[in-house]
């Protein structure tokens, strides 16, 4: 992944055209709705959020491998920060600081070359890091000679690192693969479509609550509709990964369709347990970072290991 590669990469350019067209079309539709007097102010707010986020995503991927990994690492750090602030773990700078450093190390391990195998990205270190980080987190109470309330902090820090840091950072590690453009852009695109499909199908056909104690607005109909849509998209966007066979396309559809919604529900019950509505207000009209990347945290690592199982990373 380099700037020159992006300019001559058909997959990158095709996604640019697809997303650009959707954005332009949505803008025209919203404009038309405003003209005929419909109240679409909240959708406009969300739309303006996209107008900022989409160029950022394409710009980062355009800049290449290192920029993409740094971008994902920053998202992981600030996503973890939202989690830490919401739970109150942020008040303890020993734990929060350790996880900050640990997520940064994940980014570094994704960028550097494996010192033994000479492959791009130090896969062994990336996969072994949770061991070292969890060991370090468990050490903190011992170093500080404290017992009271430490299990809660240790537990929150480990969830914070493993889920919001390590699992999400798999997305960045995908930048080291030869099909990086296809994998990354497909995942980002398909996960968002999955979200939109769940919302739209829910609005159109929603009758039965999916998990009313976690997310009262989600319906079984919406969820099934999203899975159906997500199962179709890999076939439509097959050009993203021409080396996939039918089984892998089906798995891709399932991972995005099911995994995306599970990721959404995970953040939902975390928020509901804490008692907050949004994780933050980083992105106007979208809530916090975690409210936006919730599905990706779940999808990225599972897709990553599916790809690695069938095709390896190089």
């Amino acid at each position, binding site marked *: 992944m380099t700037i020159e590669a992006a300019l001559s990469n058909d997959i990158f350019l095709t996604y640019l055209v697809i997303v650009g067209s959707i954005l332009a079309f949505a803008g025209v539709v919203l404009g038309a709705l405003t003209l005929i007097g419909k109240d679409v102010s909240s959708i406009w707010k969300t739309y303006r959020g996209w107008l900022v986020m989409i160029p950022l995503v394409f710009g980062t991927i355009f800049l290449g491998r290192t920029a993409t990994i740094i971008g994902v690492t920053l998202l992981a750090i600030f996503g973890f920060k939202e989690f830490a602030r919401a739970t109150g773990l942020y008040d303890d700078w020993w734990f929060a600081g350790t996880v900050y450093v640990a997520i940064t190390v994940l980014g570094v391990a994704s960028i550097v070359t494996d010192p033994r195998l000479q492959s791009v990205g130090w896969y062994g270190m990336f996969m072994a890091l949770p061991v070292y980080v969890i060991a370090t987190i468990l050490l903190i109470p011992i170093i500080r000679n404290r017992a009271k309330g430490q299990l809660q902090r240790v537990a929150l820090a480990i969830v914070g690192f493993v889920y919001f840091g390590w699992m999400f950072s798999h997305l960045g590690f995908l930048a080291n693969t030869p099909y990086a453009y296809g994998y990354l852009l497909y995942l980002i695109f398909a996960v968002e479509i999955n979200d939109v499909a769940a919302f739209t199908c829910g609005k159109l056909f929603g009758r039965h609550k999916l998990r009313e104690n976690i997310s009262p607005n989600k319906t079984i109909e919406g969820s099934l509709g999203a899975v159906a849509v997500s199962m179709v998209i890999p076939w439509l966007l097959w050009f993203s990964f021409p080396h996939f066979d039918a089984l892998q396309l089906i798995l891709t559809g399932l991972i995005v369709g099911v995994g995306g919604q599970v990721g959404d529900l995970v953040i939902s019950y975390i928020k509901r347990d804490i008692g*907050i*509505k949004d994780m933050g207000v980083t992105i106007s009209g979208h809530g916090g970072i975690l409210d936006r990347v919730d599905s990706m945290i779940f999808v990225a690592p599972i897709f990553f290991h599916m790809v690695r199982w069938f095709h390896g990373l190089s």
Partner: protein
Amino acid sequence: MKEWEYHPPPDIDATMIESLRDFPRQPYMLVYAMRSLAALLLRGWMKIYHRLKVVGCENLPESGSFILVCNHTSHLDTLSLLTAIPLKRIHRTFPAAAADYFFSSLPRSAMSTILINALPFDRKLKGAESLTICAQLLANDGNILIIFPEGTRTTTGKMGRFRSGIGRLVAGTDLPVIPCHLAGGIKAWPKGKVLPRPHKLRLNIGAPQTFGHLEKNAESVRSICQNLEDRVAQLGSSDA
């Protein structure tokens, strides 16, 4: 199994801009790191560029809350006082800064919050409210408040009258008030100039004063202000 308690911060629904203006402010690691770095650089700059000499550092209490009052000739007053305070207390040192000036725009708010840790003080409409915030701040042990009782920078070099806020804040309390005087500020960075000139600075820190023996009334407020004004002026004249 008993459930855990979570403590989401009060500003979780605030945007970055809102939380910059919010006070008391939430501690952020990045902000602390940037402020510590800025304080270090500031120390070097004040000592080398302005050859700042601090006299009377031993008058600063080692623990507990206290107030620094100083004459106000330029922005260098705040910067000199921040240089005199031990580095580890820098995050609990709050220069009271005019909200209409230091928090007027986003870049200024960010600078005031991150680098100086300024307390937004409304000197026009909500003076009493701002004083309440100051009093709450000082009620927490270990906080340092920097106040310029003249209320604005002098343009003539002559010290202005001390306004009543400081008297109302400390009358009848045991809070130590430390009079300080910075000499050379008016020549180094006069009001209206963009950048300071490498003029020599000298900061005199006087002995702590307490006003617990006075009652909270208009008369004692006047006498406190006069007392502090005289002491600051005296610290200034001892230089000449």
